[in-house]
């Protein structure tokens, strides 16, 4: 399979506006990034403020927001105004630059990951900002910057709960990022490339046909073991039940974000939700065939799949207990890591025999 020729979003925009050259590319890139960023932030606003409440309410026999606007959707506006107009409380003794930077780092690291995700096309535009050959490595790399933000927040807050939360977050991310990447590598072995668009393309073939229904060669179907491993590690990575230990409100109040209020809190919260969606985007790209799907345009399918992963995190949140920190570390190092290595060797063997 030769390298795929995809037109990225900045290129399309550049063509559309008729601007070229280094400056034109830069301007087109900014415009494209703004479009993708807006889509993602829009998703976060809908999910974090509205859908989260509705989903949890459905699990717990409640109705949730239904007063402002249709289905209570305008609560998004109300909440945004409320959150942004709150007083920004800066506690005494916080380590200033680090404390201020942490929310930015958190939100930015999650958003950066979307730079290379192929999100499918809509109206002939291919929603992918860039398609570097090391796409997958880039996604994992920028997503891990969040750990830095977490420890900055935890350490700079001058609060013992934040401190505990920050330490827990780092311990957890260390324990789960390795299995996450290793499982991702097994997909790379299958696809033979780190380039995300090609990983997606590799999943487009038909695996087998049952009763006229073509089952695509999604890696979730080809290698369900890796899929489950990746989902579990991803839950830990985004810090949701049963792995929401860094926040654990009933234990350490709110963990690393205890001292944040107003805009900073919004950034923290936003970073967390973008992270969930980034996790969903990675799972979709690596295991669920990316934007592939019948009838609907690619971008729509992509968003549906991301939401499915988001829905899963909310489901876990309503139904699964939080494990203890020592149990979490044990699951990570003794369970998932071993599983991830086993999966990697197995995949390598299969790929070596077949290909």
């Amino acid at each position, binding site marked *: 399979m030769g390298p795929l020729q995809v037109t990225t979003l900045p290129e399309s925009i550049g063509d559309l506006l008729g601007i070229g050259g280094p400056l034109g590319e830069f301007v087109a890139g900014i415009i494209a990034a703004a479009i993708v960023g807006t889509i993602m932030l829009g998703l976060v606003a809908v999910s974090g403020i509205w859908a989260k409440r509705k989903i949890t309410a459905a699990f717990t026999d409640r109705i949730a927001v239904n007063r402002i606007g249709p289905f209570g959707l305008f609560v998004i506006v109300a909440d945004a105004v409320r959150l942004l107009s709150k007083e920004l409380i800066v506690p005494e003794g916080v380590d200033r630059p680090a404390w201020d930077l942490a929310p930015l780092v958190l939100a930015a690291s999650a958003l950066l990951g979307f730079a290379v995700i192929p999100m499918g096309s809509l109206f002939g535009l291919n929603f992918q900002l860039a398609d570097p050959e090391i796409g997958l490595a880039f996604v994992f790399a920028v997503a891990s910057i969040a750990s830095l933000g977490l420890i900055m927040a935890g350490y700079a807050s001058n609060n013992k709960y934040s401190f505990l939360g920050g330490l827990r977050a780092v311990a957890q991310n260390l324990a789960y990022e390795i299995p996450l990447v290793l499982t991702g590598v097994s997909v790379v072995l299958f696809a033979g490339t780190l380039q995300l668009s090609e990983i997606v393309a590799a999943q487009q073939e038909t695996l087998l046909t049952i009763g006229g229904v073509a089952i695509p060669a999604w890696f979730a179907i080809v290698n369900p073991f890796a899929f489950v491993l990746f989902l579990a590690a991803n839950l830990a990575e985004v810090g949701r039940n049963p792995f929401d230990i860094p926040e654990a409100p*009933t234990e350490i109040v709110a963990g690393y974000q205890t001292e944040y209020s107003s805009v900073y809190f919004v950034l923290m919260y936003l970073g967390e939700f973008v992270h969930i969606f980034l996790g969903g985007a990675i799972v979709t790209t690596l295991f669920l065939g990316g934007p592939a799907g019948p009838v609907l345009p690619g971008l729509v399918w992509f968003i549906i799949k991301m939401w499915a992963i988001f829905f899963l995190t909310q489901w876990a949140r*309503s139904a699964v207990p*939080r*494990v203890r920190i*020592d*149990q979490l570390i044990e699951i990570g190092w003794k369970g998932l890591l071993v599983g991830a290595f086993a999966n990697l060797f197995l995949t390598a063997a299969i790929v070596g025999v077949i290909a």
Partner: protein
Amino acid sequence: MSSETVTPEVADVGVAANGDLDYDAIEELLGGYVIDRESHVNAEGFVIRPDEVEAVLSTLKDEAGFDHCASVSAQEYPDRYETIYHLRKFDEPTHEVSVVVPTPRDEPVSQSGAGVFDTAEWHEREAYDLVGVEYENHPDLRRILLPETWQGHPLSLDYDQDQPQIVPLREHANPMEKRTDVPDQPDTMFVNIGPHHPATHGVLHVKTVLDGEQVADVDPDIGYLHRCEEQMCQQGTYRHQIMPYPDRWDYISAGILNEWAYARAAEDLADIDVPEYAQVLRTMGAELCRIAAHLLAVGTFALDIYGDFTAIFMYAIRDREDVQNILEDLTGQRLMFNYLRLGGVAWDVPEPREKFFRNVREFVDSMPGRLEEYHNLLTGNELFQMRVVDTGILPPEEAKSYGATGPVARGSGIDYDLRRDDPYGYYDELDWDVITDEGEDNFARAVVRLKEMEESAKIIEQCVDLLEDWDEEDREIQSNVPRTLKPDPDTEIYRAVEGAKGELGIYIRSDGTDKPARFKIRSPCFCNLQTLPVMAEGEYVPDMIAALGSLDIVLGEVDR
């Protein structure tokens, strides 16, 4: 009553051949320690010298089998201070004895009983705090409910309520200041968990020393919700003015259970009969309250383990809502019922009776199905088991020494339930079981609560059967009680009922007026909370939170 009463293998000293308590034999056992003998309504009291408390208590504990220090009541008389240790047996709670320790007014120092019964530690701190008796050899005698800087002892006779509490800033002890047993070490961290913390179920403040993620030392600091309930009760008349207060101790819908504690003590004190029909109504109402209280206990416990967004909590609230609807029909209130009266209840079941009974039956019949759901979500969940099995261990010996009762004790395998062992109401006529579990851990306590709800449902069903068939002419809801109740002067009583959290006891001393001279509440939460260090020290922070949740404390009852 289905479970047979446990008889001790070796008869303790002081137990006659027919199983009754022989106070003369106990007096003989105590020998020279006894300087006088008093008669309380519930038990005989032996008056002893203030420097021989420990010897007397340990003799009674080791040789006469009184292993449960139910309560410690202190009070001031015009001529003396007095501390009463109410002892009973876990195996046979009807065997009671009071140890009365008078101390002179000018030097109110009495030996501490904390060396014999761990539970006495907090009880004596409370007595010191509110009444002003000092206890020698007490491991940690300081105020417990009031701030450290409080001036005077509010329940002492010469306390001036109008005198403002003026505390200069420099003297004002910072409640957040650290005070724990663990010395400062570079690798431990002191954390204040509470008074405002999502997991403390109210305004509890736990001073915690952490060694990494592990708990090195915990010291519960209570009193944030102290509302002088004892004093308020002392200022109300027996007949009507006290009954509303018990609703506000354990305010988590355990109202009728609490009211019954007062009703039982006052009725026995003033020798008031309760018609049988009213007893059945009381029993039904009380068990409905127990279900409501346990549902909330299980729900909040799930909240502690699962996190803030768990569905189980809302399911518990949903089911509790049904109980509250029934209780509202019965009592007219949803939370602060004020349904019991001395000598009966306020009113009969609402008309049309059939509709009410149908509602109750519907609820009772749905109970097994509802509990199945909780078992699926909670006890059957492997992750949940991973979290709570073998954490927060409370060995039975420790539980007994700390005076733990209720589901906390029964979760440690202590077969102690006043409804069966010290029968009141209509319980001994009904068919139900006392639930115990040998697990001794957080899991066992949750299981006991879930199973107890099933037993409560059984009791309610039998009560409905009885009420439905009750002869219409014979539905007497209140006996004839004098408008002004003045029990005989100098009668004293300690009576307890099985509240939602355990043994809820009331000590009342009457002085011949229509108000109690001393009203002491033995709160089960207060005693159960004392066991937290046993459960939590050496465990992880989340286990401590789980242990706290499994204790099911209500701060309104802890602080009173």
